[in-house]
């Protein structure tokens, strides 16, 4: 477990900023204590200072997970967000997409969001903008990338993809063993 290098921090922040923009600051600079990102097994964990100190008592090879996993760095040094980060992204998300109840399940099985299933969308959403997907009951379901802008979404046909699926809370079940 080590702190992120500048490079890694940058890639991660770039990714995060797609979803929550400058609200990353609120994750780093929290009023309720010192929180930090740590890299362990190519995964980035977000934890409080307290937990960090506790985790120092555990050897690296035995440590499975600590704090909250935000995502992992791929072999090509790209950052991929995990669904576990949703709890921290959802409250700060700038652009949101609400999915109709009918297509909720479809999204939760890992499918993209179609225009037909699109219930609501934040205006001025740019193309390829990271969005957090909510159910109509405002339950965060996951996040994705807007395939179309808000304006385009109006005109597009019902079966066209509006939001690319990236992660959903169904992964907690589907990929339980790989989620750490």
């Amino acid at each position, binding site marked *: 477990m080590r702190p992120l290098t500048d490079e890694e921090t940058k890639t991660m922040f770039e990714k995060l900023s797609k979803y929550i923009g*400058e609200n990353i*600051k609120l994750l780093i600079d929290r009023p309720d204590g*010192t929180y930090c990102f740590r890299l362990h097994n190519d995964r980035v964990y977000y934890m409080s200072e307290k937990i960090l100190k506790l985790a120092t008592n555990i050897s690296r090879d035995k440590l499975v997970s600590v704090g909250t996993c935000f995502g992992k760095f791929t072999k090509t040094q790209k950052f991929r967000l995990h669904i576990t980060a949703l709890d921290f992204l959802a409250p700060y998300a700038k652009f949101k997409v609400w999915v109709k109840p009918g297509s909720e399940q479809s999204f939760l099985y890992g499918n993209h969001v179609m225009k037909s299933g699109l219930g609501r969308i934040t205006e001025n959403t740019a193309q390829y903008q990271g969005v957090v997907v909510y159910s109509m009951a405002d339950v965060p379901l996951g996040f994705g990338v807007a395939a179309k802008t808000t304006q385009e979404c109006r005109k597009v046909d019902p079966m066209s993809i509006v939001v690319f699926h990236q992660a959903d809370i169904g992964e907690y079940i589907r990929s339980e063993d790989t989620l750490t």
Partner: protein
Amino acid sequence: MKRLYIGGLGHTVSEKDLKDRFGKFGDVSDVEIVTRKDENGAPLKRFGYININITDAEYKRCVGILNKSTWKGGTLLIQLAKESFLHRLAEERQQLVEKAKAPKIIPQEKLVDSFKAAGVENFHMKAAVPGTEIPGHANWVVSKFGRVLPVVNLKGKGKNKVFKYDPSKHCHNIKRLETADDVTSVSKLTWEIKGGDDEISKKRRGEFPKQKPCPKRSKIDLSLFLSNLAQRNAMNAAATGNKNKVAIQQNGLSAVKTGKQKSVCVFDNDSDSEDEIRMLVAQEHLRNPKQTSTEDDDDNLEVVGDDFVVKSNAFWGGVEQDDVKTSLLTSTKDDEEYDSADTDEILTRRKTQTQAESAPVTQDSPTESSKNKSSSESDEGSDEADDEDDVSVDSDYEAMMGNCYRLDLSLADLEQLAKKAEVISDDESVEEPKEEAKTPSAPPKKTGNNPEDILASLLVDDTPEKESKKKKYQVNTVSLPAFIGTKDLFGGPEPSLKRLAPNIDGESSKRLKQDLKLKEQSISEDTQSSNRLSQQKLSTLNIQRGAKKLESKASTSEDDSSSEESESSGDEDVFTSKTSSASQSVVPETELKTVSSNNSKTPVKPNQTKTSRSSSSGSSSEESESSEDEDSAGVLTSKTPSVAQSVKTISKTQMKSVSSNNSKTPVKPNQTKTSRSSSSGSSSEESESSEEEDNAKVLTSKTSLATPLARTIPETELKTVSTNNSIKPKQTKTSRSSSSDSSSEESETSDDENSRTQTKDSKSADSKSVQENVVSHQTVPHSTVIDAKKQQQDNQKRLAALEQRQKETEQQKKLIQGALSNVDAAKVNKSKHIVFDSDEDDEEEDETTSRPEQPPTNLKKSLFEDDSGSDEDQQTSMLEEKKNNKPGGSKLFDSEDEDDGAEDEQFQIKPQFEGKAGQKLMELQASFGTDSRFQVDSRFLESDAEPEDQDEAAPEEDADKQLLEEKKKSLDILQSILNTNIQPQNTRKGKMFKDVSSLHYDPTQEEHTAFEAKTEEPKKESKAARRKKRIEAEKLPEVSKDVYFDISVDLKEVFGTSKENQDKKETVSWDKEAEDPEDIMKHMEVSFTSNAEANEDTSGGFKFSFFGEDTAVETTTKTDEYKIETVKGAKFSWQADPRFQDSSSDEEEVDEVEEDQSASNEITEEPTTSKKTFFFFYQNDERLKEGPGMFCRSVKLQDQREAWEEKRTSLREECRKKHRDAKRRQRPSLKT
């Protein structure tokens, strides 16, 4: 004969017609016509049946002719019908009759006969090929071995198919069974097992012998039961009293055996061993209780005595503790209940502590006495007498000392004393067994006499009790049933138990009650004599002694009489003593007797104490208890010097008691010390109590005292506490305790004594208390020995708990000491007087030294006893004595003060142990023990110890720093990514969730200033609004102080003139009216000005310019000012217009404002100029001039019209333009 149906008959067809018509074809026997009708009764259908004897040809002809032929309005339909059931029935019956007449033919025989005819014999056809059919029988086939078998038709399962099973086709499956020669028929099979006469075979046969009661089994069960009991005991008590247990078992067994022998009935059921035992016990009890009791007593005494000796040798404090425990067994349960409350009580009832302490002490003695009582009072008396006779005074004394030693062991503080007393304790151990051995020898004969006497005394006591106070009586009554219950419980299981139970429950309970009453009585008597505490002790001593003497027949008549009297009168006294006045009369006699007895033994009280000690080995504890009680009583009673003096005397006589009462009186500590030295088991409790007192003056802490004796103490303490608070509760508690433990009774008495002492200044006679203690102790060993079997079991169980308690209490003490050492330093110093150099010799020396002081008290006491009437005088004299005694006590204390200091030091935090380094040092020291040679001082401290600490702290700081740096870095990166300026927050001042609803404004907190409405808050408004405001501010005429001031000043002058004017214009009606209000206003203003002044004070910066500086001015001037103000208000109302005017342009407003200002100036000046004041107008008012102009045309009508025409066009254009604009504006909104 056929039955025909003829349908379609006409309505008119009759039966006869039918008969005639069908008569042609045959003989018609029966005709029946049926008519079907609808709901209304109209015939729908008509048909008939006929029975006709007809041939088939005739029937065909008939059908051919008549069928479908119309006849009388109907088309006939002729069909064959079923026979009528009546006809059929008749036929069947006829057939049955015929069958019965016909001979029966068996088909089997028929078959066999037919087979025979076909050449088949016994279903065997010889020389027949399988498959050949038997002629005449279609379904019979020859099968293998020439058997003739039937062909079977089997119905397929679930199918309608029928399989034909031809056995000839399955011949190959058939085998021939070779039948054995000797074939046994089923009836000849072995239906019975042949066996001998042994039980197993019989049981196999199902023959069970009649159940016989086996005597061996019952015995085994009993022994098992006993062993179980012993096991329980063993479980409870780890080490102590194995021998006692064995003895109990043996006794129990023997008792059971005896009971069996005597018992006639035999119990068939082995399972109900306990019940059997109970029954046996009951039977035994009924038949000859006396015999069993005597035997039991003998056995118990022997066994216990041996055990006791062993115990005493094995465990220093164990014997007495065990005894106490045994005595406590019954009461321990109650104690346990109170255990948890001990600490709380300590905290809550510090003041009552002394009382509680006294109670526990007394309890110990009661327990002992209770044991004795339980065994037998006569035994006690005899034992005591024996002790006195046989054992020298010195031996008893040594025993006492031994008790002290045990106490010391229990108490950490008394370690020094313990070391000194070790030799003594050894002596005691040797001596005690002797005494014990003697005790068993004591004749039981006297027991009967004594109990009876006691009972009589009790009865006597009961009546007075009832008469005197119902409450106590109630308590006693309540306690009685409990005792009975215990009897039942104990009596059932074992004879030994029975013995114990009868002894304890029946006799002891009564005796205990009696004793308690007696004690109380004696106490009351003592109190009457003036020294209640001392009296109580004396009375108890007297009673005990009297009993002993009676038993031994060596006791003085005085003692006996006194004991009896004390018993009889004691109850009354107790009850009265609570009232506090009445009991005194009875007391003197008993006291005198006691004193006399004491005196006879030893002229001086110190001597008495010695004698008492000599007489009773264990009495020392009681003495100490009594002394404690006295001390506590003294503390409680008054904390007055007089009490302290009495305590001092006591202490001197008793010896050097460890610190006693709460620092209030130095004498008390002495007493406690003496008690420690004197008392063996009880001394530990006392010392604990004294320590506790010293530490925190916590009475309850005594309850927590861990010594085995202390077990009794908690209960007693609790009880005492309650008693202290209210006498009634004490009684109740005591009654409870008495049921279980006799000690509780003693505690009750002690409580009563305490209470009495509290109420009245207690002048305690040391000797008396000592005597009491002695008596109790004497009684104790015997009783313990006798009761030990029972009690030991329970006691052993509770021993472990007591030890735990001890530890806890010690810890508590330490904590309390540490906490209170600083807080109550002054008091503690006074109170803590612990003398550790008190050995036997020291005690004696102390006694000798104290004797000179004590004798006066004794003399006085004796005098007082003689003078039964003069209680008050005695008290006063006692006080004086005490005062005299004080100096000696103080000397003792002086020596003790050093010890106190040492104690204090123990709990002081030594500077070298402060801090982490100090902690390490302390640990090091602890590892090497306390030996100074091995003490590891600061030199051994590693120099890098502190740096280590720093190093430890450093990484944390580093980590924090690193985290901060990391955060900064990440923020920088984030900044670079977002290309925005991100400032790190002040971490601690971030957003925190605040519940607004729970927010309360606290003016003392600076943060809450935000919630205050700021008067000078710059509001950010739009420019226009700001400008408007500015304009408005400009519009508003400045109300400068100067202006008003000037006006007011002017008005002062004006006032006079206005008055003059008013005078001149009296004729004017409205003016006159105005004047009247003015007069009213004058009055009003007086008050108003005063109010105004107040307002000025209260309303800080707000000042009325009118009144501000003019408060000194006369009220008249003020009235003028008021008037002016009203006038001004009017003006402003006029001027208020511009504010509401539509200000199209700012300039206009400014002009207006200027005008207004000028106007206001004018107006303000007007009143000065125009001295006549009307309500609204002034003389030469401009408005009046302007007004009329409004009603007249200033311009000609034509000119006006022309101007209108010109204006009109422009107005129209403007209107259209506006309309257009509005339309244009509306459109986009619609679009959107």
